[in-house]
């Protein structure tokens, strides 16, 4: 079966020399959710924009349902957009403040020849009170607004939805409702999802597979369970160990990796993490490390994996 979305050797440079995306490849199968995890500057949002061709990449290829959309014009892309959808992080900013909710829901139907009457069904599908249809965005809560965005995204039965931090600006209890809705929609329609987030727990909950980004490069991919249980790349290990589980009875196991993410200008030739990595070898600075298999479906870009010396020693939680 062809992948819904295939990204091949994608590179994106912003004017001014910031290399946001650095030779990234991945594919998403129908009905699958791929989680894309990274901290600031990892290029995860840029990948979201590139995947939906809201941005044109510097190099590489983007295939949507087998069709190369890397260089398609805006006009040629437009009919495809019915099936290639996106939901953004900021629900307050993602909806035109001068349109009513009803009109906002009708818009995707209008654009792709749908039946405008379906707007009500959409509202019901995302559990939006029908009374909100006549209101304006500023009259709704963040959770409701995000439901509107999701309803707009599913209006034309998409094959892929890119979700760029869809729950990051929502409160915890509201967040759960949105995640639940997304899971239901995927179960019902088999839509594939690219779930972009910095929140490890959420990604773990919703994703089938996960890719970890560091400074625009994928350092590790694998099935969600395996990647979270036995992370291979020292950066993934660091990231997971820095996470604070919301449970005081789970002991923290800290890897004391120092420093912060360097600026994505003038990146070194080798492994980007080598500068902070306690396990770095001289060879790490030679060139970009190749992906090494760890377990079925799991691989990481670290030289230390070859002889299985990639485990960071955990420092016990001092408290």
């Amino acid at each position, binding site marked *: 079966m062809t992948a819904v979305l295939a990204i091949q050797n994608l590179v994106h440079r912003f004017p001014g020399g910031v290399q946001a995306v650095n030779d990234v490849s991945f594919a998403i199968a129908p009905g699958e959710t791929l989680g894309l995890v990274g901290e600031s500057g990892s290029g995860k949002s840029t990948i979201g924009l590139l995947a939906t061709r809201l941005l044109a990449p510097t190099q590489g290829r983007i295939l949507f349902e087998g069709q190369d959309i890397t260089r398609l014009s805006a006009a040629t892309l437009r009919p495809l957009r019915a099936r290639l959808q996106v939901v953004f992080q900021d629900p307050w900013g993602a909806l035109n403040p001068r349109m009513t909710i009803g009109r906002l829901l009708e818009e995707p139907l209008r654009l792709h020849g749908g039946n405008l009457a379906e707007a009500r069904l959409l509202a019901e599908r995302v559990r939006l009170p029908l009374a909100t249809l006549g209101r304006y965005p500023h009259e709704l809560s963040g959770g409701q607004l995000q439901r509107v965005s999701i309803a707009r995204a599913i209006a034309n039965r998409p094959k892929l939805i890119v979700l760029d931090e869809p729950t990051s600006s929502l409160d*915890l209890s509201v967040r759960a409702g949105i*995640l639940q809705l997304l899971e239901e929609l995927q179960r019902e329609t088999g839509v594939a999802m690219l779930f972009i987030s910095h929140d490890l*727990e959420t990604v773990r909950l919703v994703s089938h597979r996960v890719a970890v980004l560091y400074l625009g490069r994928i350092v590790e991919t694998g099935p969600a369970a395996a990647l979270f249980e036995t992370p291979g790349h020292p950066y993934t290990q660091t990231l997971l160990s820095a996470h604070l589980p*919301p449970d005081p009875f789970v002991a923290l196991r800290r890897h004391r990796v120092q420093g912060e993410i360097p600026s994505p200008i003038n990146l070194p030739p080798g492994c980007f993490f080598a500068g902070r990595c306690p396990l770095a070898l001289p060879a790490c600075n030679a060139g970009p490390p190749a992906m090494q298999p760890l377990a079925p479906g799991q691989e990481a870009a670290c030289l230390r994996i070859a002889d299985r010396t990639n485990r960071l020693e955990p420092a016990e939680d001092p408290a």
Partner: protein
Amino acid sequence: MTLLAVQDLHVEFATRGLDNRLRVAQALNGVSFTVAAGEVVGLVGETGAGKSLTALAAMGLLRPPARIPHGSIRFEGREIIGLSDRELEKIRGRRMAMIVQSPLTSLDPLKRIGDQLVRMQRVHDTAHGAAARTKAEAMLAAVRIPDPARRMRAWPHELSGGMAQRVLIAMALVNDPALIIADEPTTGLDVTVQAQVLDTLRDIVAARNLGALVITHDLGVVAHYCQRVAVMFAGRIVEDGPVREVFSRPSHPYTRALIDSTPGRIAQLGWTVTGGTPPDLYDLPQGCLYRDRCPRAATACLAAPPRIAVSGTHGAACHFAGEAA
């Protein structure tokens, strides 16, 4: 020793709409808690629950149209409400210091880091000249800023977010305060940096026997860095107690919902929580404010619930708090 004691604090905002009608938002509706020396208390809740407002009130930083119709805030035994600006200025930054959420924009952009730390001491008359510089540099070292001598001469715009947050911690500590109020201290930071900054803060608070009030929406921060927690909902504290007790035996349905909304719990228990909108602060209902969303709501909830003790140090404002969950 109790440093900060907030008792039945109310805060309201009076505003006028385009229709010229006066509307009053009841933002805090009877908040009570204490912070003692040597303990880190977490104040947790969702947007609009009144966490930051509580911190501002404690610092004496509320400005019109916010006003305090009722309540008491005692710091080191002294009533804060009603103090003149001049008296408050002697407390703020000196005995009670704040760490804010946006470190990069909070530092004076036109002054070097070292000079800002020195100014902080000079204004509060704790140290001057060379002594202040020495102390400033020592503080930068204490918050684990590498090469503090060089950082003294850095401009704020040259710092990363994590570095700037450490500088803010140094600013807060440089006058040896008794209480630290940290308002979402790591919200803007990356996961790996957040952990480093929180570790630093906790170590210093412990080493100096300070009291700390940490305001956060992140249950992970509460779980691992606080000893006690107060959960806020719609301007009230609905549950408070030692962190481990509250997490193991949440006694207010809202606390339970919060904990059950974390992805880890969802993975274990499935989808148990449906979110809802918080009550309208302009038109608060009588009785329990969580009633509309509560799975256990009953007629009793039409009356405002008192704080019911679950254990000696743990209590919840729910009529059913005493019963087994």
